[in-house]
């Protein structure tokens, strides 16, 4: 708790970075799936 109190700014910064990273990972996953589906559609 003491660590969190003294480094609150960095904790918030890391949380923001993790949220962005999570969003990007999710978007990358969706992007790959859409790309696969588009390729399947083109080969049909």
């Amino acid at each position, binding site marked *: 708790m003491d660590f969190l109190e003294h480094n609150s700014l*960095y904790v918030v910064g890391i949380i923001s*970075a993790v949220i962005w990273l999570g969003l990007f990972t999710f978007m990358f996953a*969706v992007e790959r799936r*859409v790309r696969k589906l588009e390729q399947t559609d083109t080969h049909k």
Partner: protein
Amino acid sequence: MKIFRSNIFLFCLCIALAVQVFIAFETPIGGSFSDAVQLSMNGVQAVTPVKATLVSVDSIGELFKDLYGEPGHINLSGKSLVSYGSFTSFAKGDVLVMSIAYNPSTKAFDLVDVIRENPIMTFPMIQGLGELGRNILFHVPMSMVAFIAFVIGTIYSILYLVKRNYDYDRQARAASAGGFLFTLMATVTGSIWARFSWGTFWNWDPREISIFILLLVYMAYFMLRSLLEESEDKKARIAAVYNIIGMISAFFLMFILPRITQSLHPGGGSLVGKGAEAPLLNLSGKTHIDRTLSNMQWISVILFLFVFLWIKDIYTRILRLQDKRAEEI
């Protein structure tokens, strides 16, 4: 847009956003000596971060000049600044960001800590916000991107009404969905900010009410587009008309209403001359915001805009695939 299919571009965007978060939280905040005096006298903040340049050493202590050129003595209480903490090589002309406390009896400042020596850049001390002011680099750009997204959505809706190309309808839906997402993110970041600045997550402030109505307006748009039991063309036409009306209300709710009503937000009531002018968009055309913070804000807007365009691109492609499947069935 083909650029969003390049992994290298997306990787660069990811790195740029990580750098943006790093700068937003790592850049020190440095105010002026008058900030330190005012905050101390008002009992708001005993210790204030100040950015100042070391000018000379005299009998009272080290003489500094802050960012506005105001002089101030810093009492070291016998400590030598030259060997303070991990900073060991100060010279005249060095710019320091320090935590200092105002001492009314000596009218000088006591050094509490040295935060940074010769920083590349600093953010200004915004009285009443302190470290919370960093949220300006997330909350404000997200709201701006949300509005740009709604404008893009409306342009596609107009294009659909003119050219009757279904792809414009898909683009309009995707842009509005992206705008909705960014409005939601601006609301969440604003709500967290409100909790620590004003005491509660939600105050029903005019700007909060307007953003809430805006979210309802666009929720209605998505419901209208998906629930109508008409032909595809009629559904798309009704949704396009609604989207244009939604855009007009977005303009009113985001720019007019919060400026004609008294609000906790900066700029509230400025059109009727009762409140402070909005920092960025106001009738006098002046920018009431620090240049460094303003530049970082515009960089954030560009980065978030790319994220929005990526989301829009993926959603449009999903809608194309869905429509193609529906046609096959």
